[in-house]
């Protein structure tokens, strides 16, 4: 006990000394801090508020030390106003939700732009366009895939749509010079070298959990006089990786792959990956090289998905493909719009489609323009129109239906009351028939208007 007490006693003086020393050191700056009372121009208004100073400091050092959520609402607004648009997205992405800031960012990057396309969200617009830019400028084997993946954690929550208008091929001397407009040979060439593979989507899509719409063009934009055929290759490997990526992306609703030389085999690969997809609603494979086998695969997809819109115009689908499609169409309960423009269905396919319309009860829009159809299709279609009451828009333009076909169609139309639009330009019909059909359409339109007003009135 005594010992302890003595020790304590010995301890205290030391502590006291230390304290006094600290006091002395603290006393000095206190002396220095003085207000010069004689200054006549001094006023409190000149002195910036401490809060403002702090906020300015926060803005200045936002990159190193992002303090935002802890601030008061007023201070937040101040900080957002002052914050630089050139700050790296990794800092701001998940921290700032204010639209005004993102608007400033977007405008500083791309100038004026239409935000309505992006669901009126500047932030979404910024991240989507940012990611699109990165992917469009991605050069395989040159650009590091990490540069894409680095952006993902920031974009993930905001990217809903990717509209990729070009995909660059790797920079390498092409092994072979190819000058052939035949599609088959081009697709065959795709197998040859792995050098022509584009950006691999399988590393990206499974990470974008909110992605709903994907639009791809396997080709180069604005190549000008540097045109080479191999700039527009869609290799089999690309296809496989894309199929894998699509399978992993469960939130996808809209898929558009246009002008990418998708032939039957690739189409089958893609479709097989899309079978039983939980959310896909719209598929667009137009301006490709899909033939009958591809069409058959798409027909299978119709049976095993919830597709609402299908566009496969400007392909090479012929009669058998159309038969497969119409077979699927007859049973499909969900498809609303089908576009088969610029194919080669001919009468064989046209009749099949018309017969499918007899059974189908949900298709609203059907485009069969420029399909080399003739009179038999017109009769079949007239028969379908008599029985079908859901179809509203029909296009049969650029088919040589002929005068007789026009007559039959007019007769069929006279029994129809649901069709609102029917394109029958350049079908070699007589003007009389065209006029009659136009009249019927107009009455149908007014009737539909009335019905709609009644419906809305009833609901109101």
């Amino acid at each position, binding site marked *: 006990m005594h010992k302890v007490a003595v020790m304590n006693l010995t301890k205290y003086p030391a502590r006291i000394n230390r304290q006094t020393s600290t006091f002395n050191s603290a006393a000095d700056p206190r002396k220095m801090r003085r207000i010069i009372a004689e200054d006549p121009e001094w006023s409190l208004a000149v002195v910036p508020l401490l809060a403002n100073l702090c906020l300015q400091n926060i803005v200045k050092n936002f990159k190193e030390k992002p303090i935002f959520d802890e601030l008061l609402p007023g201070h937040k607004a101040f900080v957002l106003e002052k914050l630089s648009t050139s700050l790296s997205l990794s800092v701001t992405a998940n921290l700032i939700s204010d639209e005004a800031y993102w608007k400033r960012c977007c405008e500083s990057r791309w100038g004026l732009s239409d935000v309505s396309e992006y669901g009126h969200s500047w932030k979404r617009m910024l991240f989507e366009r940012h990611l699109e830019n990165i992917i469009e400028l991605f050069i395989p084997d040159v650009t590091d895939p990490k540069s894409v993946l680095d952006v993902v954690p920031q974009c993930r929550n905001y990217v809903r749509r990717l509209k990729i208008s070009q995909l660059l091929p790797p920079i390498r001397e092409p092994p072979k010079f190819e000058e052939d407009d035949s599609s088959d040979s081009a697709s065959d060439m795709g197998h040859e070298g792995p050098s022509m593979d584009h950006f691999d989507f399988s590393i990206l899509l499974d990470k974008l959990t909110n992605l709903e719409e994907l639009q791809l063009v396997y080709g180069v934009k604005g190549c000008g006089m540097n045109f080479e055929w191999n700039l527009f290759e869609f290799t089999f490997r690309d296809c496989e990786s894309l199929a894998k990526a699509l399978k992993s992306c469960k939130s996808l609703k809209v898929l558009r792959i246009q002008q990418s030389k998708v032939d039957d085999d690739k189409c089958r690969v893609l479709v097989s990956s899309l079978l039983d997809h939980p959310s896909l609603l719209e598929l667009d494979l137009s301006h490709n090289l899909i033939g009958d086998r591809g069409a058959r695969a798409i027909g299978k997809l119709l049976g095993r998905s919830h597709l609402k819109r299908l566009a496969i115009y400007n392909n090479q689908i012929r009669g058998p493909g159309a038969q497969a499609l119409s077979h699927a169409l007859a049973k499909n309960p969900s498809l609303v719009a089908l576009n088969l423009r*610029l194919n080669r269905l001919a009468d064989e396919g046209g009749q099949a489609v018309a017969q499918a319309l007899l059974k189908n009860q949900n298709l609203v829009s059907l485009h069969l323009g420029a399909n080399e159809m003739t009179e038999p299709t017109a009769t079949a279609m007239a028969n379908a129109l008599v029985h079908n009451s859901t179809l509203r828009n029909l296009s049969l333009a*650029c088919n040589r239906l002929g005068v007789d076909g026009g007559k039959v169609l007019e007769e069929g139309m006279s029994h129809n009351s649901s069709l609102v639009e029917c394109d029958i330009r*350049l079908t070699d019909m007589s003007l009389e028939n065209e006029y009659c059909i136009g009249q019927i359409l107009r009455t149908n339109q007014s009737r539909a*208007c009335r019905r*709609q*007003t009644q419906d*809305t009135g009833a609901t109101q």
Partner: protein
Amino acid sequence: METLRQETDEAGPSIGSENPDERIAARRLRIAARNEAKKRQELGSNSQEDTEIKEVRMSQKKVEQSEKRMAKLQADGTELVTNILVAADFRESKRRAEMEEARRLRIEKLENEAKSSLEKFEEITQKWTVAKAKQIPQDLRDALISQQILCGQLLEDKNKVIIELQQELKASDDRYVKDLKKHTEEVDLMIERLQEQIISLKKSYREELDLVESTFDEERRTLLADNRMKWEQQRQRQSDRELELLLQRMQQVEEHELQLQRLRLDNTKECNTIKAKLEMDVQILEQQLQKMKATCQLNQEKLEYNFQVLKKRDEENIITKSQQKRKITRMQDILNNLKTKCSNQEKQSREENQSLTDDYKRIMQQYKDMQRKMRHFAAVDAKRLEDVWLMNEAEAKALVRQALEIDRLIHEQQLGLAWTPPPLTVMEQPGPVQPRNRIQPSARQAAAQALVRREAPGEERELEEQTDGNTVEVPGGPESTGGRMDQKTVKRLLELLCDEMGFLIESKLLKLLSPLEKDERSLIKLDSIFSALAIESEEDVYKMADFFMKYKFQQKDQAEQHSSVSNQGETAEQKDSDLIHPNDVLRALRTFTALYCKPRDISSRQLSGIPELEGRDDSEDGACWESLATVVPEPKLKVWSTLEAALEKYHFVLTERSKLVNETQHLKQQNSELRMLLHQYLNSKVNTELAIPPTQVMKLDPE
């Protein structure tokens, strides 16, 4: 309503719009407007309804017309624009068909060509074999030349095909370029058309809008005019009515003014009178008020004074109250102290009381003891006195008799005179104290007697006589008055008592008695019963028996009275009518004890012998003793003194003589002793040893 409609039509989406959503919205608005209109119509008057509907229809029609027109315009425009697309499609499809056809033709041609060239080739190869077979050089040369020509033809054909294909390619290239050009043209055209379309649509929309606006304006104007007219009419009507009302009102006002004037006059009169009266009242009241004020002042002062006084008092009260309070507290303390003291005191006093009572009891006990002792001692004293008395008397009498005897002896022997005895009246007279030889026989003895009598009837008489003698001796005894009791009844009664009164005997005693004989047992039992009942004497026994007999007779009388009530008791009593019923013994005994025990106690106390002591008079005692002292007369005493003197002389002589006798006696004795000694010495053994034995000496002197 119209303005609303205008708004919807002007600002809102039009029904004729291209966008279906917009159309829907427009229709919805229209329906809403219609519903609104309906509501208003219902609310509004019927007269206005028709006109409104008409007007609505006019504008509606106009709007619908314009909508239709615009829709048509738009459809035409879109058709115009899409025409290009369709044409392009058509061309494309046509081109494709042509291409297909061309390809087909080309392939056919190529196949034909291939076939022909194959034929040619086969021909050439055949010719080669032919040529090989040829031996003649000319022939061979010819053949070779022909072969060469054929090969050249074949090559030419091939070249031709190639050139053709190249031409086709070039043509298609040209065509592609042309197509491209055309496409650009078409795109330009389309853009142009679109722009035109936009411009025209804008223009027409504006026109339509203007038109619709103008119609609406017109409608509004007409409506306004109508409404204004109506308004004017209404206002006119209203103003007329107002005027009328005003006139009426003025008239009324005049009337009212007159009335008011009249009323005012009346009121002023009334008011004046009332005023005067009231003023009077006021004066009186003021006076009263003054008085009251004075009194009030007075009262106030008084009250103030009182208040002061009361204040003072209050203060005093407070002081006194505090004092009282203090006092109360003090008192309380004191009270508490006192209470404690009191309690202590009480306790002490109780203790004291207890001790005192104890003392008292003890003292009482002591007192009783003392009394008892005193009684005892009194009795003893009496007895002693009696004894002493008797003894002294006897002694005195003996002394007297001795003196008389001596006197007689003196007279007879010494004097030789005849002795005449003095009168001895004193001797014959009995003393004041008589020896008490009367002993009452105890109850036990009586009982024993009563019991024994049964066994020995012979002795009965004797005992009876004895008891008779005893009882007769006692003067005024209760038994003597009660007469003789039948001994048999007494005995039976005693036996009855012995049986019935067992509870009075101690249980221990009963145990002890069990081995004894019946008679003895009953005797002891009776003894204990008598001790319990405090019956001590025989007298009491007989008294009891007598009482019992009497009681029996009484009971009998009562029983006769109540014979009707209790038959059983009657029979039992009749059975032994001469004796008391065993059941009644206890009752009878109780009444007996209640009656006799108290008086007997008192009487016994009175008879305890104390009055004997008290009642004794000692007046005669002195005389008595005196008489005893004077038995011997004076002359006789003189005789005696002279005689004494003579006798003393005689006595002296006699004593001298006796002394001498004694001396001789003594000498005789000494002589015998000496003789004895001498004899002893002579007979001793030493004498034999001596030269001269004393015996011889003695022999010398044999005597």
